[in-house]
């Protein structure tokens, strides 16, 4: 725990952290509980999320901004996913293996304005374990090492998961667009 806290090295950051805790802890619990459907596990997810936050507080500029709210939601969701993964690792592994099969990465071709609504429905359906990777990478512009630090995995594994997420999304869009065509 001391290792995590060592990065909060100014009274301003400490104050910011306390403010986030006071303002968002119930919100974060609710988000976690939606995924986990277990009050106590949701509390564990919140606790883990706050620990992770101590190392990435630089991502929070304004405590009260919508961006901060979203960032906290992403962290706590990824922690909830982690808890679920620990409870059923075999199932999760199977998911990854299934998603690995298929064709090359042509996701970029589908990322066009015409497919905007298809993309929305696909992202909403995409598993959280993949979605949070996209959120960290694109919304918060975080590198693999930073994401790995939050998720407790290596940067290499983040990269592997990212490409699996891309393939999965690509497959979903192909299916969605194909159905309508």
């Amino acid at each position: 725990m001391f290792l995590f806290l060592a990065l909060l090295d100014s009274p301003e950051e400490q104050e910011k952290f306390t403010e986030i805790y006071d303002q968002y802890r119930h919100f974060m619990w609710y988000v976690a509980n939606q995924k986990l459907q277990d009050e106590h596990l949701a509390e564990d997810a919140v606790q883990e999320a706050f620990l992770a936050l101590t190392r990435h507080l630089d991502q929070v500029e304004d405590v009260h901004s919508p961006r901060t709210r979203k960032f906290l939601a992403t962290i706590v969701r990824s922690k909830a996913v982690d808890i679920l993964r620990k409870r059923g690792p075999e199932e999760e592994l199977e998911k990854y293996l299934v998603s690995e099969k298929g064709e090359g990465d042509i996701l970029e071709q589908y990322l066009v304005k015409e497919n905007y609504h298809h993309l929305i429905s696909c992202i909403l359906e995409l598993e959280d374990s993949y979605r949070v990777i996209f959120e960290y990478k694109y919304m918060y512009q975080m590198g693999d090492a930073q994401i790995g630090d939050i998720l407790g995995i290596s940067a290499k594994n983040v990269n592997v998961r990212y490409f699996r997420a891309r393939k999965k999304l690509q497959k979903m869009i192909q299916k969605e667009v194909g159905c309508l065509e």
Partner: protein
Amino acid sequence: MNKQEELLVQVLEECLEEDLSFVPPEREIARKHRFSESFEQAMQKLLEEISHRSGEKEIQRHFLPRYGQWAACILVFCVCGWLFYQVSGQIGSKDAAPAEIDESQAFDSAAGEAEDAGEGNEQAAEESGTLQEETSDLTTAEGGQVYCGRTVYPAEIQDVPESLEGVTTLVNCPVLDEENPVLMLTIGNVGEEDIRYLNRYDLEVWLEDAWYRIPAEKETEGEWLTLEAGMAVDEEIDLSKYQIDYDASQYRLVTYVEQDVLGVEFTFGEVFKKTMEETERN
């Protein structure tokens, strides 16, 4: 970031916004869910550690040799010199201290004697019976009283309000059933700012002339928790865990909020009934 990535960001943002639009306001969630004690303890510990580490880091930052060895040497030299100056100054002041203490003690003693003399003159005018009664009451209040087979001592603070500006306490049942001595203590933050409260309470009983604190079976220090503005916290209290006399006239639960002490009174059904009957007779 290229156009495709920008589009993906837009999609991700919209999806997240849609998901979060179903989340009720913080206060509403807080009303429905109360964090477990283990969670509160762990987070409290984390916040305390942060505070502690932050202080240490500040000190470390000042002493890091980032400004070069010379700067560090000069700093150490200055600090040592300042410390030496302070220590030698303290030793000097300690030598002078006893004389000052003697003087202040003499002043206090003289003032006390003058006050006593004044009170003595006033009391002399009163009847001797009243005087004895008052002396007896004072002795009881200062010493302990035997209650339920053990000695209880007067509460440090006798006059305790039920509510203050911004915070109030209440019990769900001011007249309690002896067969089901469970009540709910509520602390309400009616102000506009968050407050800190101690998640421990004291049970006190009114005996003859003063409030006496009933020791808990398991004394705990309690923890300071935050109560958000406009929120209330409920604490279920099972009095069957205490050794208490259901015939005592009045009880109160004392809580600690910020720097203040608040108390809320309650009684038991039989005692209340007797009191009402007496009132009707009079």
